[in-house]
């Protein structure tokens, strides 16, 4: 038995919004990163679902790329968070405000 | 190719001077500037054009080469001279040379940069008057602002920064408005034009005009564009109420910059008005004649009144320029041979006379380090010759017969008094003519306070005779002023020949 595609879409949207909510509310850099991961995964859900829906593998393939690049992104992100901590003694993203206006 | 030569010499000269050592820069620039002056005088004698450059007249020294394609329109390097632009080119080259000479005394820092910029401005000014393609013209038109901005800003007086940036932004904004309107016009003309060559556009305008754009009908568009361009140029001229940048710029600018500013830059505005608004929009001129004449008259009287209230010699001359430019507008809107011709003549004449005035004021300033009427008196006692020339210049400004100023003003008055196009022409003219009384008022007042009476000076400098080179350059100008006053036909024939097609059409 199959599930209609729009349920997947609704699910992914929910996940996306959760991630977005996290991005907007979390001050901790790591949580920020995780939320972004959520949003990316929401996209992945879509891709897989639509891949089935359209009956071609492009979506799944793209999903793989997304994961890979997400990992790379996290790697760079962690590096930056590291130097952030080194310079500001904190991983709160709202702390560094030396540049504004 | 002669025009290219003119511009090239000035440009290269600018580069050379820019890198030359400071101490020789002045003399070097002078030597270089003699070349364009000589060439332009030769052009003057060799002039073989006839008719108006925009309305298929015979161009002199024409040259055209394709440049680039913008969509359906082609832009080309297109220059040439007619009876209107040639005298202005000559005026430019002569005034630039004299301006360089008159800066030998006052300019004592970063000379090479200064003289480089003066030559650079000369190149662009020549370009403005010689260009016959809109983009070529516009590029030179805008490029003039940069050196002038720096001249005022670097070598100017105490409030130079404010004055410079005000001048720069104000005039640039005006250019933007004008540019916008003109582009709209060109698109409005639709398929009837295929290039930005001004003659082509002018011809298209005169027979037919635009088809319309943005849902505006042809006439409506033309009217809107006319207003837009008039406003754009009005700032440059300047006419009241867009004049407030002028006194600031003049007062702060160093003498040579003032000479060029009043002598040539203001003429850019009136020249553009003549070339664009009054050549391309015969119907709109007719439509807006009365308001424009009103603006002109207001400029004349109001400008003169402002001059009357000043105590700074440069401010006086600056405001009187506003007044004189008002005459030009009046002559243009009259759309008669003597009116438009007189207006053009006034451009030249005022260029010479205001140049002379600023030179004389500059000489006095160099000696006294003040321009305040209240700070000095009896200067005639110390620098008789310079003062004598100053007085001569002042009377030239007042329109003394046998000097160019009178010829110009008389032509304008005569041309506008009986204008059939302008309603109430006699009334407008009579009111505007009252300017000749006010001008006498403030100039004589200034003379009485500064050059006559017992000698006294607030600033502690010992005033001696004016330097020979300054006197010499002033004498040259005075000579030209008198020559044109005695024999206006030296240029007036050529001018009227060029403006006849403009007024010839349906009036």
């Amino acid at each position, binding site marked *: 038995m199959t599930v209609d595609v729009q349920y997947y879409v609704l699910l992914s949207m929910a996940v996306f919004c959760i991630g*977005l909510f996290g*991005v*907007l*509310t979390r*001050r901790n850099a790591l949580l920020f990163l995780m939320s972004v991961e959520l949003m990316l995964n929401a996209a992945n859900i879509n891709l897989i679902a639509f891949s089935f829906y359209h009956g071609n593998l492009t979506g799944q393939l793209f999903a793989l790329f997304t994961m890979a690049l997400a990992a790379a992104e996290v790697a760079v992100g962690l590096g930056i968070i590291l130097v952030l901590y080194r310079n500001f003694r904190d991983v709160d*993203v*709202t702390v*560094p*405000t*030396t*540049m*504004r*206006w | 190719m002669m025009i290219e030569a003119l511009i090239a010499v000035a440009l290269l000269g600018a580069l050379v001077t820019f890198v030359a050592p400071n101490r020789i820069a002045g003399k070097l620039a002078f030597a270089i500037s003699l070349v364009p002056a000589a060439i332009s005088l030769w052009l003057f004698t060799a002039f073989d054009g006839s008719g108006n450059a925009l309305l298929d007249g015979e161009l002199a020294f024409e040259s055209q080469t394709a440049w680039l394609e913008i969509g359906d329109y082609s832009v080309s390097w297109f220059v040439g001279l007619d009876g209107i632009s040639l005298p202005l080119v000559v005026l430019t080259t002569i005034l630039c040379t004299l301006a360089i000479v008159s800066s030998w005394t006052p300019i004592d820092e970063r000379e090479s940069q200064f003289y480089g910029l003066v030559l650079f401005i000369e190149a662009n000014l020549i370009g403005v008057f010689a260009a016959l393609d809109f983009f070529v013209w516009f590029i030179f038109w805008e490029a003039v602002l940069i050196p002038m901005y720096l001249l005022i800003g670097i070598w100017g007086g105490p409030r130079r920064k404010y004055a410079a940036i*005000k001048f720069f*932004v104000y005039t640039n904004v005006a250019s933007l408005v004008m540019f916008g309107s003109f582009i709209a016009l060109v698109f409005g003309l639709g398929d009837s034009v295929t290039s930005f060559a001004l003659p082509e556009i002018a011809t298209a305008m005169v027979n037919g005009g635009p088809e319309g754009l943005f849902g505006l009908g042809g006439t409506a568009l033309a009217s809107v564009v006319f207003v837009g361009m008039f406003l754009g140029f009005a700032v440059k001229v300047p006419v009241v*109420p867009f004049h*407030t940048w002028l006194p600031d710029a003049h007062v702060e600018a160093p003498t040579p910059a003032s000479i060029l500013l009043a002598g040539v830059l203001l003429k850019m505005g009136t020249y553009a008005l003549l070339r664009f608004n009054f050549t391309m929009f015969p119907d709109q001129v007719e439509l807006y004649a009365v308001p424009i004449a009103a603006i002109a008259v207001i400029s004349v009287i*109001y400008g003169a*009144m*402002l001059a*009357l*209230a*000043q105590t700074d010699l440069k401010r006086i001359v600056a405001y009187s320029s506003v007044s004189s430019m008002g005459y030009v507008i009046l002559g243009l809107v009259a759309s008669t*041979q*003597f009116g438009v011709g007189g207006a053009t003549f006034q451009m030249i004449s005022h260029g010479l006379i205001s140049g002379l005035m600023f030179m004389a004021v500059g000489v006095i300033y160099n000696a006294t380090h003040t321009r305040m009427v209240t700070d000095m008196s009896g200067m*005639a*006692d110390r620098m008789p010759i310079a003062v004598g020339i100053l007085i001569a210049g002042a*009377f030239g400004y007042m329109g*003394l*017969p*046998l000097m160019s100023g*009178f*010829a110009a003003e*008389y*032509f304008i*008055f*005569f*041309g506008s*008094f*009986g*204008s059939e196009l302008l309603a109430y022409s006699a009334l407008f*003219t009579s009111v505007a*003519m*009252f300017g*000749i*009384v006010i001008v*006498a*008022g403030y100039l*004589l*007042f200034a*003379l*009485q306070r500064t050059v*006559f*009476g*017992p*000698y006294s000076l607030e600033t502690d400098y010992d005033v001696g005779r004016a330097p020979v080179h300054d006197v010499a350059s002033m004498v040259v100008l005075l000579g030209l002023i008198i020559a044109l006053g005695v*024999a*206006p*036909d030296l240029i*007036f024939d050529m001018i009227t020949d060029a403006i006849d097609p403009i007024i010839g059409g349906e009036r």
Partner: protein
Amino acid sequence: MAGLATDPFGFAPAIAVFPLVAFVVALLFGEHLPKKGALPGIIATAGSLAISLVMFVAVGGGKTHHATLYEWTNGAAQSATGVETIAFSFGILIDPLSALMLVIVSLVALLVHVFSLGYMNAEGETGLPRYYAELGLFTFSMLAFVFADNLLMAFMFFELVGLCSYLLIGFWFRTKSAPSAAKKAFLVTRFGDYFFLIGVVAIAATFGTVGFAGEESFVTAAETAIDNEATLFGFDAQTWVTITGLLVLGGVLGKSAQFPFHTWLPDAMEGPTTVSALIHAATMVAAGVYLVARMFGYYALSPTALAIIAFVGGFTALFAATMGVVKDDVKQVLAYSTISQYGYMMLGLGVGGYVAGVFHLMNHAFFKALLFLGAGAVIILMHHEQDMWEMGGLKDKAPVTYYTFLAGALALAGIVPFSGFWSKDEVLFDALIVGLEQPVILAAYAMGLIAVFFTGVYTFRMVFLTFHGEPRSETAEDPHPVGWAVKAPLIVLGVLAALTGLVNMAPVAHVLGVDITFLEFWLDGEYGAVEGLTYHEYSETVAFGESYVGSETVTMLLSAGLSLGLALAGAFTAHTLYNVPEPDRHMTKLGGAYGLLRRNYYQDEYQVWLAEGLTLPLARAADRFDQTVIDGVVNGTSTISLFGSDRLKRIQTGIVTNYAALLVGGFIGLLLVLGYIGGWFA
């Protein structure tokens, strides 16, 4: 040059060119020349005089000259009378009138140059080259103005003489008063010239020509226009001619110092007395009147204009004469008398008395020049003291000065047989006969008549205070001697002042019935004239009716007797009041009037107020408005945009989560807009 034999007029331009050359020479080399440039001036003016006399003779011989020298410019005219093209040129018109005037001007100029040797050089003035250069320039301009053949040329040189007057009044520029007087003189006359220029432009734009004489003259054009009942600039031709005529008259009133533009002339006495003699008595001030005579044909077309001219003339004559009565400075007295005398000429011309006007112009030129030079001599005697109350008793110490001055005084007062009497009497006679028809003119005549009395008073008051009685100061005790350069011109002018009246003794002619009114014949083209510029043609045009008390002769003798009587009465009054050992000012007798007259009827006050009390504050207000409102708007625009910028950049708070929020917010906003339009939420 065989030119002189065949056509003397070939040399006409030289009349003006000589002084121009003198101007250049004096300006450039004056410092190095003996007499500091006086000699070029004298030679040049002598030359001009010579050629002028040749012209005079030639005209007497029936020839006239009208030629265009040089075309200034030409072009399309928008004339209301349908003339297609117009040419502005410099031309020479030598007819009886201009020939006469040329002689007068060049003669007086020569004499003044000579006199200057004594008055300026001998007194060790500095800046003499400037002085003589300006004198030369003036003579050039004046002579060119005189033989101008068109209105524009006339205007040009009219302005130039104004410039010279400005420069010469301000000759002693190191003082405070002289420059101010010069400024005033130029401004007031400029104000008149403003109307003049409008007139010139209007006439040119109306008739498409500015010529004085011939078929292409604007006079002829005006006549035709009136005959065709054309409509010009929305008026019928008659009115328009009047309007333009009055506009030109503005310049005339300014130059000839007629009410209300008379205020500059007394101040102009700040200049050297020689200048006052040449410019502010004999020639430049005459330019206005001369212009009216020159284009008399035009005014003749408009009775209204004529009546106004006559009335202004008559009024000014009286008005100025009364002020002359109370002045202490000898030059001031002469200045007001000059104003008053030109009033007479205006009166004469206004009533159509073309001959009378010109006659008085000529006589006045001589006797007023004489009086001024005489005053100059007195000033030398008195070591540059000008207050008559410091003088007295100079009669015996300087006989030449005294008797010549006396001749001038008699002429001025109009005592028979001196020149002034004949011309003034003729003016009054013409005014009277027209006045009997026209009440306005009659009023003008009355004023002119009363003025005769005051003329007598101030003239002889001057004579008595200066020369008679006891010396009232030690300088008057032993005056500074004067040289031949001073005396010679005085004598020449003295003779002329005594005799020139004899050229037109109308009453005598009438009584004896002999043709001795030579000037009238001269101006009437008996000897030679340009078509249309003759007395009788003018008289035909003038629309005034005339009538007489009894017969013409009776009227003539009556008016002559009347004026002579009044003059004598005035002289006698002066005699009783001032020809006493210890004269006093008699302020009390005059009472309030005294103050009023001393203050010149507050004319200067209100004019100064117009300039400084009204115009200047207005200008200041305009300036304030300009600085605050207009410039305020300009600066305000930039201020506002910068303020906006300062606010706008605050959205960049620096806190990254805010960025995320704003980013998402913006995105959602965009989504809503597009989604709404695209109907995605349906």
